[in-house]
């Protein structure tokens, strides 16, 4: 039987999960992000599978992806959801008798998520036990629930107190945009899109379809193989001139820090954006905003924070309102229900003030709280 560990953020769920796994050690563990989902010992997907494969395992393989086609890929180059699916596949080929998953299933699209849950629910028949933390699920049928009620006020946040000033964001035009990774297949082909200010857009699509890639293209982290972007009709090439439009909160918060402390991170962003004549809130205002996100001091060392707190802090830059558009990649990962609702409302307030918002989420309840237009990625294009 599986065990579902329920509770609010900071109620001790992760510690409880690890304690369960230590009791059953060795046990397979899938943490919230890649460094705690993959072994880190392999250079290719084929090697990752080889490390965990056991000749003694008789359980059926969980194979939602065509893993032979991914064999030569480097595991960190897979999307977040694909990494979780790879980890689950590795477990299914291994002889571990227990698995623990800490919020990682929140990264999966509905189809893969249902498939993963169905596989884990058959653990008794396949000779393994599962322990699961998931903020978007109630206890699955047939699972034992372990509810943790304690919590701490250390990182309590108050998103309702965040209000940005009115802003006239530019319209973003995407024209004949094509992209492929070197040596890879087409991710996008001749995409045309208009993102209007004062609106929120949700990117949807299955794991690995290119949602994060589109965000990286708009932020200038990647350059298109063909096509162009415009701002209010004027040419804009962030991959050449630098990003001055999008405040990005990445899926893994540790992908966005530019310093060791919050103060260092903010100072470097301030200096960079000053080159583009982007005016920023004062340190006092940013400190107040950080406090609303549960961080009491700008001198806080970022990597000392728990992951959930780091994820919340990753919203600071978008919610500061310094940039006209905000982009959030799976912003709700690891967050409990009240926090997700408060974040959705904060995004709604930003767009009402004229900001544009683009977000990626598999969390339908979260998206439903935001007045948005869906953009579906399919067949190398974006369908609006």
């Amino acid at each position: 039987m599986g065990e579902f560990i329920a509770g609010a953020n900071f109620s001790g769920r992760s510690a409880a999960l690890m304690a369960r796994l230590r009791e059953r050690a060795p046990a397979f563990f899938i943490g919230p992000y890649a460094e705690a989902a993959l072994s880190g010992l392999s250079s290719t997907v084929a090697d990752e599978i080889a490390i965990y494969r056991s000749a003694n395992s008789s359980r059926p393989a969980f194979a939602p992806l065509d893993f032979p086609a991914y064999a030569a890929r480097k595991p960190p180059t897979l999307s977040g959801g694909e990494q979780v699916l790879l980890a689950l596949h590795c477990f299914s080929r291994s002889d571990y008798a227990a698995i623990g998953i800490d919020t990682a299933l929140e990264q999966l699209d509905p189809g893969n998520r249902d498939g993963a849950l169905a596989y884990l629910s058959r653990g008794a028949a396949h000779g393994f036990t599962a322990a699961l933390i998931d903020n978007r699920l109630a206890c699955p049928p047939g699972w034992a629930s372990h509810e943790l009620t304690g919590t701490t006020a250390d990182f309590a946040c108050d998103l309702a107190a965040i209000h940005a000033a009115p802003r006239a964001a530019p319209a973003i035009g995407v024209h004949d945009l094509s992209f492929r990774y070197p040596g890879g297949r087409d991710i996008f082909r001749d995409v045309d899109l208009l993102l209007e200010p004062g609106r929120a857009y949700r990117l949807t699509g299955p794991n690995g379809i290119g949602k994060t890639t589109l965000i990286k293209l708009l932020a200038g982290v990647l350059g298109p193989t063909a096509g162009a972007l415009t701002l209010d009709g004027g040419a804009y090439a962030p991959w050449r001139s630098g990003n001055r439009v999008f405040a990005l909160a990445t899926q893994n918060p540790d992908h966005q820090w530019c310093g060791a402390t919050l103060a260092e991170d903010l100072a470097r962003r301030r200096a960079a954006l000053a080159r583009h004549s982007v005016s920023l809130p004062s340190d006092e205002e940013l400190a107040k905003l950080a406090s609303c996100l549960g961080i009491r001091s700008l001198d806080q060392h970022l990597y000392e924070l728990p992951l959930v707190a780091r994820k919340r802090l990753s919203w600071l830059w978008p919610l500061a309102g310094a940039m006209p558009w905000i982009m959030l990649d799976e912003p709700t990962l690891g967050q409990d229900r009240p926090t997700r609702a408060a974040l959705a409302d904060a995004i709604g307030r930003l767009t009402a003030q004229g900001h544009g918002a683009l977000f990626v989420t598999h969390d339908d309840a979260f998206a439903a709280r935001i007045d948005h237009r869906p953009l579906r990625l399919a067949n190398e294009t974006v369908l609006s």
Partner: protein
Amino acid sequence: MTPNGAVIFGFVIIAGALVARDVVSLMVILAITLIFAFGSRQRIWSALLWSTGIVLPLALFMGLVWIGIVGRAPHEIAANVEGSRAAAAVYTAVICLRLFIIAFAIQAAFLHFPGWTPLRFVAALTAPQIAKKLLVLTLSLIDTILQAVDRARTALIAAGIITRRQSWRNLRPGWILVQTVWLTVVTIAIGRTRDKWPVEDTLARLDRTLGGAAPRLGGADFAWAALAIAGAAMALGMR
């Protein structure tokens, strides 16, 4: 060919390149390495380009210093003779050719194993288990650093601190990139070693993955090794 055969060939060629003292013997060793690379029946352009890319900065630097500024070879300085730029050029060519052969021999060895994963290659080596595990961990650390570079670049580009396109403006915040990369490497390593590896005993799985007998050396291994030994012996004889 087996991985052990490729390693033997590589070691002998590298040893030959290190003992060779003149351009002629180095050219002979290079010719043997080229034959070895062609013997893989793979395209060798990529290996040649990578090797050139590795050597080019050294060649430019040595050319500037020894040919351009000093104008004499080191042995001429030691003998306190007038010397010439031609001798300095020969000295620079020998050093750079030596490095080129080392880089190219390593890549040529891997050309013989298309489709092999690093783990499969290491598993097929005859070496103590601990040495194989150390090799896998070293490769893993290299991959982690590359991953960290990618992550740090993403962070700094998205924040507008650097641009994706190569630019002189990116030089000034270069140290921020270095700091961010190292912070990221540490974070990734901690993420693995604190939670995942201890509870899974992940490293122990390598014992099984890397275990098993290495394939025995075959005719091709002996033939390539003999050619490499001949080249190294000739280089030794020409000293």
